[in-house]
């Protein structure tokens, strides 16, 4: 038990072990932060894909799937499927209401024509609607607090139904970054910029014009179609790529704009009683996608297999019925049925590779831990040679001597790992606040760093009067550090802050702030293990110390 006593005293009676614990803690924190952010990023990609697209996507772009209602009914009858909904997607030009004057901004957007109620059952649509009465958790500076609830409640309802309920007109919901007038604040909220005179460019209440280019059978283009929509709300999915390019409109309007609505099939060779070409059937409305939500606990891949079977049966049924416009074949007709992960594979896979690469590169930090502990312990063993001789003289075994240093290494590893985890947790959980402060450094920080630099300078001057060099050098170092921090904050403030996590580069408007528990546990174990490895060599060296040589000279 003398090992515990001595390891404890060696640890607490000097600064070096504390420096070692600090260094190991920094290494551990570094790995946990990097891997957590990467893993969080990956999780956000995955979950956003699921939130925005459901679990399985049946897609037949451009021409669309006819009789999609029957396909949906068949899919919803599957025990694995919770709900399914049609979507018509296309690209168009959106004429914005700004700036003031005759010339308006135009923006290229992807529009999704949806049935809002069904779409909300498959995706998290309702939750993404941004303009809604604020809850208690919303920050005090949030723009939504400036709007009366009598305004926000109808806006939320209009967003849910995709209709301007006052005029009865079909409405449009824009991605929150479609409008350049929406500025993201440092606290992550959205605030529309003010107009030159009067109120702000708050989009609900304004009108936009969406122009789409429909096709007429295959790829042949017809006349573009434009529709004026009142903006009824905006959505905020968190995926910048989507929030800055996607708009939602009602399904029937979208089908009409792309000529995918129900139509008549006529035979030019036959005339009816009025001498017009004869109507020989109905061309059913189409949907370019059907999104499917799995029942909770059902794997998306298992659901995809069931949907594939359902689609083949649905197509065969319509062929057997002799439908004039049968659905395209799944195998050869270009219909794709994919899970959300497969749909996002091109996006997810590189991120997974990047994460593994980062994990591998940053794992080299473990070697730093081992080297650090080795160097420090080597010095300690050298310094403690006489103690080792004394311990041998009172009967301590070689194994016992080495166990003191291994125990010492263990404590440094465990201490470093625990402090590292704490540090990583604090940084990761507050990473968006830290980033926000870097983007807009608080003025108080200037006073704090300046005050610390000044205080440190005064203490250094006073301590230098004693004539000793070490306190003076230490004081100068601390003063220079605070002075550099002060200059850095002032320059940052003057430059208007620095934004490292640019949403337009990283797709998401928020930095992931969840600690990856698995990575944390692995990193902590690695740090302890490598600290022990670093302690092994000095421990063996300590065990081999010749007690006579150790005790011979004072």
């Amino acid at each position, binding site marked *: *038990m*003398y090992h515990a*006593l*001595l390891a404890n*005293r*060696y640890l607490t*009676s000097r600064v070096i072990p504390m420096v070692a614990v600090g260094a190991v803690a920094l290494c551990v924190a570094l790995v946990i932060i990097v891997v957590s952010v990467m893993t969080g990023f990956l999780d956000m990609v995955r979950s956003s894909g699921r939130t925005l697209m459901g679990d399985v996507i049946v897609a037949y772009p451009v021409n669309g799937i006819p009789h999609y209602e029957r396909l949906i009914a068949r899919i919803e009858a599957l025990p694995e499927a919770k709900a399914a909904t049609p979507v018509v997607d296309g690209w168009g030009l959106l004429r914005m209401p700004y700036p003031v004057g005759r010339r308006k901004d135009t923006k290229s957007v992807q529009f999704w024509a949806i049935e809002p109620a069904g779409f909300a059952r498959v995706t998290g649509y309702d939750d993404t609607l941004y303009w809604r009465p604020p809850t208690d958790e919303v920050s005090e500076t949030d723009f939504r607090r400036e709007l009366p609830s009598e305004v926000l409640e109808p806006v939320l309802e209009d967003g849910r139904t995709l209709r301007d309920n006052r005029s009865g007109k079909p409405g449009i919901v824009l991605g929150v970054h479609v409008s350049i007038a929406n500025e993201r604040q440092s606290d992550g909220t959205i605030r529309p910029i003010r107009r030159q005179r009067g109120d702000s460019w708050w989009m609900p209440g304004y009108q936009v014009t969406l122009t789409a280019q429909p096709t007429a059978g295959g790829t042949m283009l017809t006349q573009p179609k434009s529709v004026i929509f009142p903006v009824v709300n905006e959505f905020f999915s968190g995926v910048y790529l989507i929030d800055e390019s996607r708009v939602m409109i009602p399904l029937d309007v979208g089908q009409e704009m792309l000529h995918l609505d129900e139509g008549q099939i006529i035979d030019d060779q036959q005339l009816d009683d009025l001498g017009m070409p004869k109507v020989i059937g109905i061309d059913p409305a189409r949907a370019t996608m059907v999104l499917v939500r799995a029942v909770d606990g059902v794997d998306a891949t298992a659901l995809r297999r069931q949907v594939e079977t359902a689609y083949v049966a649905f197509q065969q049924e319509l062929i057997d019925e002799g439908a004039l416009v049968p659905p395209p074949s799944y195998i050869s007709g270009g219909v794709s049925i994919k899970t959300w992960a497969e749909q996002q594979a091109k996006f997810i896979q590189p991120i997974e590779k990047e994460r593994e690469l980062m994990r591998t590169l940053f794992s080299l930090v473990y070697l730093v831990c081992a080297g650090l502990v080795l160097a420090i312990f080597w010095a300690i063993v050298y310094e403690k040679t*006489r*103690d080792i*001789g*004394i*311990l*041998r*003289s*009172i*009967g*301590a*075994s*070689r194994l*016992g001597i080495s166990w003191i240093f291994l125990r010492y290494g263990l404590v440094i590893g465990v201490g470093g790992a625990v402090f590292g985890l704490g540090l990583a947790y604090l940084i990761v959980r507050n990473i968006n606040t830290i980033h926000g402060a870097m983007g807009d450094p608080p003025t108080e920080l200037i006073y704090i760093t300046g005050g610390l630099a000044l205080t440190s300078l005064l203490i250094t001057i006073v301590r230098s009067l004693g004539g000793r060099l070490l306190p003076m050098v230490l004081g100068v170092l601390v003063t220079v550090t605070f002075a550099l921090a002060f200059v850095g904050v002032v320059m940052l403030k003057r430059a208007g802050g620095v934004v490292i996590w640019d949403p337009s580069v990283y797709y998401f408007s928020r930095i992931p702030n969840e600690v990856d528990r698995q990575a944390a546990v692995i990193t902590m174990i690695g740090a302890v293990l490598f600290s022990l490895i670093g302690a092994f060599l000095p421990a063996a060296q300590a065990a081999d110390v010749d*007690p*006579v040589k150790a*005790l*011979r000279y*004072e």
Partner: protein
Amino acid sequence: MSEIRVAQRPALAATDTEPATHSLLSAVELYKTYQLGRIDVPVLKGATLHVKQGEWVAVLGASGSGKSTLLHLFGDLDQPDSTTRKSEDGIPISKRKRSMRRGVCPKCNYPIGASAVCTDCGYCFGEVFFEGTPLSSMSRRQRDQYRNKSVGFVFQFYHLLPELTVLENTVLPGLVGLSRWRYYRQIGQLRARARSVLESFGLGPRLKHRPRELSGGERQRVAMARALMNQPKVLLADEPTGNLDEMTGEEILDLIAEQHRDGLTIVMVTHDPAIARRADRLVQLHDGRIQDLPDAHG
């Protein structure tokens, strides 16, 4: 440098090794050579000394004569050349150790028991005996226990651990070899024992002090208390007053004498004849060998 002798002196072998079995502590034909660069420096050249139970032996000798080396060999901090250096007669060390454990002559396999000399072929090798058992025949664990329980060291430079308090320094030998389970059961007793020894040495008010806060005499008394913590059978004192003024040195010698009166066996090395005279018996280490000196009180 030969540390292994094919003894041509049967008389030495027959008589000088015999007391090893009757003495508490014995050094028989110890050879020890140190290397200074490429030069071998012989320090002990067949030193033989028998210490009886309850005896206080003072080893006198000039600086560098090998006094401390002899004490280190007694205390198993070091090993005689016979167990560490290759012999000139070609018998490997491992074989020598094996034979000694079996109690046979490494050269002719003649039964020699715990003796260091073969009465048959005259083969002779250096060895330290404690209660008749050669130290080199003990396992590592037994030797650790020997250093922990059977002998106590007092050094010239005190050698206290600077991070520990007086009480912790004293209790340390009690903690060595104690399992966690026994620690919780015995720590109270150990502390009480350490406190009692320290108080008897007049260090009661100094229990929580660090060594740097003590005077030289106080430090040496703490070192004495530590050496006596486990109630050893032999106290090995290496110039215990060498770093102290005369008066403080006398106090330390008084403490040693008090322990001796209580029956403790003491081997003390010193270069000062005046100090050595406090012992029962005086020997001198000269040219690597032990020579008896006239009676200490005579």
